């Protein structure tokens, strides 16, 4: 018997404030796979991901994490989550180490100090994202790309089997993207599954096992990343082909090559 898929989304519809946002979507993240969820702004990508990790309810269909319905899923340490536009900076200064330590919560008992294993896991995660020499610095001093790496380290600190990231590449500089590409390759080699929302795949393109494209809340493509760009679906790709013009919108101010 094979292990259940880390993420199994079947025929899921989600409405937000009465408005349908995701319609009958299917998506699977297999063990050790790297799945990219693509689509333009407002296509329902984040909504689908947030429902899958249990942050918002869904109306119909089924979502299972490691074979357990998401509502009953308790093995929280198996998921490393990196929210959209999350920032390592809050109202009070915190070191990178302190922020990453909160990624250990699902593994720590209700009360008590951090153990040696906790501290080692945190140091390892910070090392993996290439910020070991900054671990004791205030997170506020980091660039956007470095902060995103801190958020990913927090996701990894719990020793997850599935890393779920909502636009981890948004605003991330070239150097950080290269660090992440090496990191993700390492994770995939060790059997960790990755599910990520992205606009641009950039340096990660060659790592993607499967691309899933959402358009107006519906899955319009599931398959290899290359196949999606090359075949007739190219006109759906948010960054290829010409933009579709909405009725009533003039071409004034639109650059036409």
């Amino acid at each position, binding site marked *: 018997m094979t292990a259940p898929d880390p993420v199994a989304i079947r025929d899921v519809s989600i409405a937000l404030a009465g408005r349908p946002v995701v319609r009958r979507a299917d998506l699977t993240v297999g063990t050790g796979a790297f799945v990219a969820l693509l689509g333009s702004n407002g296509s329902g990508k984040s909504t689908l991901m947030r429902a899958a990790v249990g942050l918002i309810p869904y109306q119909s269909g089924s979502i299972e994490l490691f074979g357990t319905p998401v509502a009953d899923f308790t093995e929280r340490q198996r998921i490393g989550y990196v929210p959209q536009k999350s920032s390592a900076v809050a109202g009070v200064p915190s070191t990178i180490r302190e922020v990453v330590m909160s990624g250990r919560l699902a593994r720590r008992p209700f009360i008590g100090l*951090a153990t040696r294993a906790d501290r080692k896991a945190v140091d390892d995660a910070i090392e993996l994202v290439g910020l070991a020499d900054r671990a004791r610095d205030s997170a506020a001093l980091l660039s956007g790309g470095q902060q995103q790496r801190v958020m990913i380290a927090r996701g990894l600190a719990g020793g997850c089997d599935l890393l779920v990231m909502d636009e981890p590449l948004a605003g991330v500089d070239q150097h950080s993207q290269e660090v992440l590409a090496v990191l993700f390759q390492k994770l995939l080699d060790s059997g960790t599954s990755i599910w990520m929302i992205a606009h641009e795949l950039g340096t990660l393109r060659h790592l993607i096992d499967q691309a899933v494209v959402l358009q107006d809340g519906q899955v319009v493509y599931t398959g290899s990343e290359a196949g999606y760009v090359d075949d007739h679906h190219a006109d759906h790709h948010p960054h290829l082909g010409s933009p579709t013009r909405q009725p009533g919108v003039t071409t004034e101010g639109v650059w036409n090559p």
Partner: protein
Amino acid sequence: MLSFQFMQYALLAALMTGMTTPAIGTYLVQRRLALLGDGIGHIALTGVALGVLTHTTPIITAVIVSSIGAIAIELLRAYGHTSGDVALALLFYGGIAGGVLLINLAGGTAAQLNGYLFGAITTISSTDLLLVLVLAVVILVVALGLAPQLFAVCQDEEHARVSGVPVRLYSILIAVLAAVTVTVAMRTVGLLLVSALMVVPVATAQQLTRSFKTTVALAMAIGTVAAVAGVTTSYFANTQPGPTIVVLALGVFVLVTPIGTMLRSRRNRRAAAYPESRLDV
């Protein structure tokens, strides 16, 4: 000075206030809810008046009413589609109006509430002091003991929820802790000034620190020094203790600010010296 019992009581109460207010205040500042303490202070006034009306110790009624108010603020924020600041405003005014109305019903005037609005630390009774001590210990145990969870909830709610942390429960816990803290500080600095001791020491400390842990510790130290020194100063200068404490705390803030600016620019220069940082724009 220490031979007077009222001064012994006052200094002990000031010590408790100085330690507890920044401990919980740090979480409020981290959540960007710095004014929550002020809102709860207003609600506590209704509690005080209720105590006067029903001939109960006002600290007890204030703890109960302000805790209910704090929970109401959290629930309004979570379910009522009301933004945090509007939820606060609703309770600000309800609290003040309720307090004055209830005092009127008890046959008193608003002037009777002065001791609670601005503090009356030298008139604190042994029962009050005992209550303050017990509540302060509870606050410190919870605020420091559950620090990992409270930190995670205040830092990033979504991540905490996916990690399996019952975020709503902890949000309510933080609000109730703030309510209890307000009541502890009520006799020392008064309900109108309590928020200052929750926020000013934290704002001062974070100019010098880079970690959450040291921010909490330093804020508690600054709060304690300001509270104890404030009571002592007020004894010799013959001023009201509450405002004296707050002015001292603000004075420390003003003194520390230029040092903080210097430290930060030095740290920025050092951070910029890392080769990879230069690649980041």
